[in-house]
């Protein structure tokens, strides 16, 4: 699947979750830069899963630290 298309769809999804208005780049980290709490992470993951009809397991989430890695992972999961 096209990485750019995946990225633009995730860009739209992250907006309502980015309450602090952080400028999101490929290097932005979820825990550090966005300071998301557990519920926000869970809801954001669910939103992505629903958008692309995929599962991002906890095992896969553990490998994802920044925004770029998330886009890579979702692109790969879409096959």
């Amino acid at each position, binding site marked *: 699947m096209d990485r750019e298309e995946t990225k633009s769809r995730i860009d739209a999804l992250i907006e309502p979750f980015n309450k602090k208005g952080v400028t999101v780049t490929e290097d932005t980290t*979820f*825990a550090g830069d966005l300071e*998301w*709490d*557990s*519920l*926000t*992470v*869970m*809801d954001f*993951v*669910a939103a992505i*899963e*629903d958008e692309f*009809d*995929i*599962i991002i*397991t*906890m*095992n896969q*989430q*553990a490998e*994802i*630290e920044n925004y770029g890695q*998330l886009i890579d992972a979702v692109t790969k999961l879409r096959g």
Partner: protein
Amino acid sequence: MSDAISQPDKPESLPETAEGSKDLFSKFDPLIKQREDLLGSGFEDPFGLVMERVLSPVTAICNGRETILLGTYNYMGMTFDPDVIASGQAALADFGSGTTGSRVLNGTYVGHKETEKALCEFYGMDHAMVFSTGYQANLGIISTIAGKGDYIVLDIDSHASIWDGCALGNAEVVPFKHNDLEAMEKRLRRIPEGAGKLVVLEGVYSMLGDIAPLKEMIAIAKKYDAMILVDEAHSMGFIGPNGRGVAEDQGVLDDVDFVIGTFSKSVGTVGGFCVSNHPKFEIMRLVCRPYVFTASLPPSVVATATTSIRKLMDAGDKREHLWANSKRLHKGLKDLGFTLGTEEPESAIIAVIMPDLERGAGMWEALLKEGLYVNLARPPATPAGMTLLRCSLCAEHSEEQVGQILTMFEAAGKKTGII
């Protein structure tokens, strides 16, 4: 990114150690500081309480004060039952203080088999396996039955022992939003065809005291050919017509593949178990590492458990009194103006929601000074970062004591400005 998840009991990741630091304990510094700040402001340590004397299932001398216990999970008050104590004393005298061995070597005594027989009868199931703790029962069963390539679908508010069972195994772990049927179904639907599936649920969730819609959830799990494990730790003995738990109460116990339970709540001692009708269940005794590689329970413990389980089969009056206590406390606290974890009483746990950790600790201490012990629960063990005062009722709390408890809550709540 799951680093940021610090859901109820899910292992919390700690901040990274500064570059070049050699002390492996540096990662605990933020927690040490939070604790020092709390104690520095003059609070009694909520996590350092000592029971100096225990007078009954519901009263003890704590920090020098006679205290009503409202945070013990001793739901059925079996800890001082004369028959339970007598059977433990006899086993201690006849079989000694401990087995010094694994269940699969020298650690299976006649008493362990009797406990397993009592559990089979209590649940009406074919197989029962006793573990040394409830924690180990979840750890062992979950990590053993869900292997590499299998999927575990679980509620995000699951107990620590469930999360740790997932972490110990090699399965793919997929959490869903608490008690959310749609979120659960979506995840099951997306699992690759042919993969093994285990759905892990709890009857009663211990933080807020709410129950799961097991009937609906189990129907969904069945639709996707998943095996189902239900932890009924907080329901045994008083929920369901025979006290078998929430699955029995909702009429779906026959569809549950594995029930996990504990002896450290209603049964009144320590230990854990799994009961099942799976025809191949007995092989678990050889392949489940947290069962094999630890010593079995002492003979006195399994003797007390057996006696207690058998008495719980016929404890209708106690059950009724426990429910009456739960309903009265729930209504009383609500009328006083406290915010509670559930709209209606759903179990023997009533969670009082505090505005923040500091005021929660203040209220906890004020209650202790009034002579009442409750559990202070704080993030990350709690859902949504809440601070809770968790009350668990006992069938041995008298009507008079429930009245005293409400008076104490009113006094402490006004003193600390919570109500």
